[in-house]
């Protein structure tokens, strides 16, 4: 259980696909205009990640090393197309707002990276969890970015207008260059927090060591 929790924290924070690994930036910048888009895109990527990880993990011993990338891409594109058809059939408004970025999940490097780095070397269940956790990490980062952009750009939160119709948004943040700048700030903030935490942990460990040694000395005496 603890192992799973560690894997979760590592995937969502330590190795966050957007904020730490900086993978799949193109669709992040384009799609994070509204929070609903972020959730839709995040869910689509997560589903593709889980299924492609599971199938690739199942087939990992059958796929010859020479053609593994080709095999991965075929599997990934298959799942992406399936997800796209399902979204078209059941969530047409989401299909409209995500547009071409659903089929472009095929070339999103997060999925290939997880297939190559994790699923092709691990068993099915850990691979499924890895897909889920990476997807959650992706969605979380996307959601933070898009909530800020939607708030400043449209003055709304999950589509709810907060300031009435007279609100004039900051157009810059709605367009991709604004997203780029905002993403940079977000990455800086997250890394700052992570580094601070590490330092705290280190100093705490040192303190703990020192006090343990002191206790030892006391006991020995």
């Amino acid at each position: 259980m603890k192992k799973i929790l560690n894997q979760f924290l590592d995937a969502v924070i330590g190795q966050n696909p957007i904020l730490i690994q900086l993978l799949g930036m193109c669709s992040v910048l384009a799609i994070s205009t509204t929070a609903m888009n972020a959730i839709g895109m995040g869910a689509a990527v997560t589903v593709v990640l889980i299924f492609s990880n599971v199938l690739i993990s199942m087939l990992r011993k059958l796929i010859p090393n020479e053609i593994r990338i080709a095999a991965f891409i075929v599997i990934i594109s298959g799942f992406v197309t399936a997800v796209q058809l399902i979204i078209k059939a059941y969530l047409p408004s989401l299909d409209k707002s995500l547009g071409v970025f659903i089929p472009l999940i095929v070339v999103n490097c997060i999925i290939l990276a997880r297939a190559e780095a994790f699923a092709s070397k691990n068993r099915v269940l850990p691979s499924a969890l890895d897909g889920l956790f990476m997807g959650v990490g992706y969605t979380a980062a996307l959601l933070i970015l898009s909530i800020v952009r939607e708030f400043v750009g449209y003055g709304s939160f999950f589509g709810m207008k907060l300031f009435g119709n007279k609100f004039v948004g900051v157009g810059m943040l709605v367009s991709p260059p604004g997203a780029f700048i905002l993403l940079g700030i977000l990455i800086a903030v997250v890394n700052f927090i992570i580094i601070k935490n590490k330092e705290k942990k280190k100093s705490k460990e040192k303190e703990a060591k020192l006090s343990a040694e002191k206790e030892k000395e006391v006991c020995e005496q």
Partner: protein
Amino acid sequence: MSNENNMKKSIRIVVTLCLITALVGALLAFVNLVTKDRIAEQNQKAMDEAVAVIFGEGTTEEIAGDYQAPVSKVFDVKVAGHSVGYCVLVNPKGYGGAVEMMVGITPEGAVRGISIVSHSETPNLGTKVVENTSYLANYFGKTQPVSYGDGIEAVSGATRSSNAVRDGVNAALALGLGKKVPVTDQEG
């Protein structure tokens, strides 16, 4: 010996990739089978909604024909069996790709309404045109192809989105649907 090994390896590669592709193909065939009708239904629904925005009610009957881009489909709109006008589906090029829009034409050949089915124009710029119903309303009542100046101007900052709407309306009007200006023989 090594040649034989190489052969074996090549065959294994080909067979594996074929099997994986077949597997994925089967999966997609299944998903397609499940979603096909539903997707067609959703597309139809989007069209119907666009028609409903313009005409309020009515059923559509597609008028088949070879249309030149940007016109893609023409519908006859009927209420209780009587034609109340036409809807022309056009997809002129905007700034972010095609702007799919429905142009409603009255039986007299005038623009009755415009409804945008889908677009990918820039938020806050192109959307000033394609999501602005009062701007689109400038085109209502026009019977002849429009150029900027006769009461309609491009929105500044969104020239190409404005051009898309103009081109779409003009293409629909150029079909000459309606009784007053019969140019083609396709109208009923």
